[in-house]
C-alpha cells in the first residue's frame, strides 16, 4: 500500500469537498470512498469475500442443495459406507467426496456441519458483542464502582485464554444440569461459553470511546436540556464506535468458529447427532490411520478455508478502517 505521510499528503487525499457545492451523487461518492477503493483494489480481499459468501450461502441453504440427507436413517445404507471420493477409482458418483462409516455422504455432512458451525459462531459473536458493548457503555458512563468492578473482571478474565473459560463453563453446566437435560441446552451453553470468553474486547473499546465522548461539551449540553444519558450514549457514542466494533466482530467470528470446532473436536461441543465441522473431524480422526482419510480431511479443509477467508476479511477491514494508515 502506498505509504503517504505528512500533513500535505493527508490533507490532499481527504474526500473531495466539491461536495460543498452540489456534490456528486451517492454512487459516485461510494465509489470514491477509501474503504471501497481498498476493497476493490485488493484481489485477495475480493477472493476471500467471495469465498466467504459462497460458504455462508451454501451453509444457509444446506437442506436444499445437499445431495443427500445425512441424518435420515431411512436413506442410509451400511452398504454405502467407506466409499472414497468420486474421482478415485473405487468411488461412487453419487457421493462426490466419499462416505463415512455409516454410509453418510461427506459432502452433505459438510454442508450441514458448516451450518451448525456458522450458526454457533455468529450467535456467540452476537452475544459477545451485545454483552460487551452494553457493559462498556455502562462502565464508561456510570464510572465509579460499576466501572471498577467491570474492568477488574475484564482484567482477570483476560489473563486466561478463551478455550479454558469455554471449557470451564461447559464443564460446570454439565455438572449443574445433569447429563440428560444437558443435551437440551447444549447449544445455549456453547453460545454462552464462547461468547463469554470474547466480550472483553468490545467492552474495553466502547468504554474508551465513552470516556472520550463523555467529557465533550455537547454531552454536557444535552444533559442540561434534559436528554437522558442513555439516549446520548446510544445516539452519539455508538455510531462513532461502530467501526472498531465491526473489526473486532469479524476477527472474533473466525476465532469463534475455531473455538467451537475445537470444543466439538474435544468432545465437549455440539452433540454427534447434529455435528459441526469440528465433530466431523473428530469422528473422521479415528479412521485416519486405517486409510479412510477423506472422512476427516475434507471437513478439515472446509474449516480451514472458512477460517482463513473470514480472517482475511477481518484483516482487510481493520486496515481499511484504521485512520492511522490512511
Amino acid at each position: 500500500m502506498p505509504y503517504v505521510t505528512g500533513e500535505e499528503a493527508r490533507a490532499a487525499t481527504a474526500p473531495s469537498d466539491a461536495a460543498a457545492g452540489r456534490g456528486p451523487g451517492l454512487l459516485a461518492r461510494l465509489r470514491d470512498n477509501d474503504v471501497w477503493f481498498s476493497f476493490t483494489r485488493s484481489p485477495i480481499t475480493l477472493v476471500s469475500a467471495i469465498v466467504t459468501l459462497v460458504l455462508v450461502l451454501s451453509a444457509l441453504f444446506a437442506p436444499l442443495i445437499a445431495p443427500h440427507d445425512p441424518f435420515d436413517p431411512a436413506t442410509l445404507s451400511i452398504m454405502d459406507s467407506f466409499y472414497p471420493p468420486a474421482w478415485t477409482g473405487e468411488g461412487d458418483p453419487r457421493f462426490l467426496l466419499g462416505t463415512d462409516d455409516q454410509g453418510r455422504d461427506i459432502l452433505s455432512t459438510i454442508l450441514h456441519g458448516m451450518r451448525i458451525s456458522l450458526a454457533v459462531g455468529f450467535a456467540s459473536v452476537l452475544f459477545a458483542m451485545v454483552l460487551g458493548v452494553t457493559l462498556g457503555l455502562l462502565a464508561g458512563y456510570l464510572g465509579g464502582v460499576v466501572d471498577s468492578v467491570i474492568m477488574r473482571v475484564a482484567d482477570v478474565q483476560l489473563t486466561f485464554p478463551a478455550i479454558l473459560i469455554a471449557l470451564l463453563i461447559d464443564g460446570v453446566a454439565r455438572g449443574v444440569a445433569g447429563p440428560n437435560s444437558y443435551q437440551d441446552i447444549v447449544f445455549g451453553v456453547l453460545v454462552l461459553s464462547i461468547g463469554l470468553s470474547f466480550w472483553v474486547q468490545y467492552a474495553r473499546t466502547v468504554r474508551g470511546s465513552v470516556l472520550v465522548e463523555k467529557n465533550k461539551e455537547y454531552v454536557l449540553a444535552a444533559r442540561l436540556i434534559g436528554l437522558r444519558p442513555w439516549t446520548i450514549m446510544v445516539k452519539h457514542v455508538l455510531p462513532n464506535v461502530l467501526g472498531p466494533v465491526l473489526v473486532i466482530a469479524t476477527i472474533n467470528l473466525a476465532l469463534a468458529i475455531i473455538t467451537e470446532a475445537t470444543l466439538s473436536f474435544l468432545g465437549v461441543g455440539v452433540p454427534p447427532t447434529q455435528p459441526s465441522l469440528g465433530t466431523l473431524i473428530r469422528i473422521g480422526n479415528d479412521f485416519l490411520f486405517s486409510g479412510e482419510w477423506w472422512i476427516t480431511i475434507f471437513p478439515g479443509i472446509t474449516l480451514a478455508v472458512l477460517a482463513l477467508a473470514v480472517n482475511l476479511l477481518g484483516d482487510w477491514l481493520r486496515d481499511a478502517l484504521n485512520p492511522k494508515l490512511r
Partner: protein
Amino acid sequence: MTPTLSVRNLRVEIPTRRGVLTAIDDLSFDIAPGEVLGMVGESGAGKSITGSAIIGLLEPPGRVAGGEIRLAGERIDHLPPERMRHVRGRRIGMIFQDPLTSLNPLYRIGEQLVETILTHERLSGRAARDKAQRLLEEVGIPAAAERLSAYPHQFSGGMRQRVVIALALAADPQLVIADEPTTALDVSVQAQIIALLKRLCADRGASVMLITHDMGVIAETADRVCVLYAGRLAEIGPVRDVVKHPQHPYTEGLMAAIPSLAGDPDEKLAQIPGSMPRLGAIPPGCAFNPRCDFAFDRCRAERPDAYPAGATQAACFLHDATSAPPPEIAGRASEAGIRLVRAPAETGR
C-alpha cells in the same frame, strides 16, 4: 563565494493512489556560509518537506523529481544511499520539533552522544566521552559529567532540546536544518534555545535553515527569510525588508495578520480570507490568486516566476515589467505598500 546550500528548481513529488502530488514546485534559493535563512509558511506549505528533501530523508514514496541540490558546490540530490549517509550528520545536521520523541528512551544520553561522535570520527572511547561531555557543557547543561549517564526522560523539555542540538552539532556540520525547533517548548524557553542555536552555529561558521511558522522567531533570528505557499516560493529576501515592506500580497497579508500591541484593541484582527489549497487542488496560474486582493486576469492564467521587487524577490505579476494590472488594482496595491514595477501613473492614460 560558493553558497553553503544551493537549491535550484527543486521539485518534490508524492505518488499516491489518486495521482501524483507536487509537494514542492520549482523552488530555488541559496544559503550563504554562516547565514541564517528562515523558511516560513502555513502548515502544509512544504517547509518540512524541503528540509527532508535536502537531507535525503523524504518518506517514501515521496521523491525528488527534479532540480538540483548542491552542498558547497557538490550535488547531493541523487547520491547513492551510502554516500548520502556520510553527508548526513557530518556535513548536514538536522533537528526536529519534539525533543522527547527525538531521543531513544532506552539509551542514556552519553551513549547516544558517543555513538554519534564515533560514527563520524575515529576516537578512543575515552576521547569520545570527553567530547560528549564538552558538547553538553557547550549547550548549557549543568553538571554535564553526571548527566551523561541520565536517560532522556529525566530531562526537562528545554534541556532535552539542548541535548538534541548537541547531537546534531557533534560532527560539526556545515549546514544545520532546524525543523520547528521551538514549537514543542514552553514560551519562556523558546528564546533561549533559539539564541543557543544561533550562537553555536555562528561559532562554528555553520549555516542554518530555520523552518518555522512563527514569524516572531524569524524576525529575531534570521538574516534572510523565504516564504512558501502551497509548495511554491512566494517571497524571499532580507528579514527586515520582508517583514517591514512585504512585496508579495500573501506576505503582506501574513504581516498584517500579526496582532500588534500598538494596535487598536477593538479593531478586528486582519485575516486572509479562505485557506491555502490542498496539494491536489491547486488552482491554475498563481496558487494564491483566489485569495488575493490584487489578482487580475494574468494571475489566473499563468504562473509567476520570482521577480526582483526592491530588496526582495517576489513571485507576483505585480512585479513583472511586462504585466499590466488594471489601474484600480495597481492603485490599491500601491496603497498597501507594494512597490509596483511601474507606478500607476505610467500605464499610459
